């Protein structure tokens, strides 16, 4: 099981802040494709790869990254700290 966490407008559009899933995906991009097939909300949210970022186990990463060791994957828009 992997925990998926959503922030900001991604959380609002998917309609939940987190969920636990089983997946056969081995990379972030495969996981995104899998989620997009699940429901139209995911395909809308993840339609533009440039509009969001991803972190595995609380570390910023890229879409090709392996999720084999992932316990927690977070999706969020570009950060706006400061």
């Amino acid at each position, binding site marked *: 099981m992997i925990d998926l966490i959503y*922030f*900001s407008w991604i959380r609002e559009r998917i309609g939940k802040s987190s969920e636990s899933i089983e997946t056969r995906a081995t990379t972030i991009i495969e996981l995104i494709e899998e989620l997009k097939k699940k429901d139209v909300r995911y395909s809308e949210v993840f339609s533009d790869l440039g509009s969001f970022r991803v*972190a595995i186990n609380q570390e910023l990463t890229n879409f090709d990254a392996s999720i084999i060791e992932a316990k927690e994957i977070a999706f*969020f*828009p*570009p950060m706006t*700290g*400061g």
Partner: protein
Amino acid sequence: MHISVQSEFFDFSKEVENFSSKLDNIGALVTFTGIVRGQKSKNLDYMLIEHYPGMTETQIKLIVEETFKRWKICDALVIHRYGKLEPGEPIMMVATAAQHRKEAFEAAEYLMDYLKSRAPFWKKEVLNGEGNWVGAASGDEAALSRW
């Protein structure tokens, strides 16, 4: 190194006083405070700041550690708030102390540039009862390349 991620209001003058009172033999102290822009400019009701607990603290610590590696600074302070903030309230502050002003200024700027694009915070502005997520400015990511 002093890092605080908090919802509570902070008084920046007291924080600066507290930070500087623990320092010895410094020649320069630079501070920056980010404030929720007031109602006069755009009729803002309030601002909501969301963050990623755990990752936020880790990311800020990594940014501050990198700052220590790059500049000869004596100490650094980062306070960043989350939750509901009213116009005029402080959002965050950084302070850097060094022997000389160049190091203190540059370290503070570096901290600000990285906190802006690498610390997992998201801001929502509520204007006339309607919420809008603040997008990253186009120059924010580009600002990192100068370092």
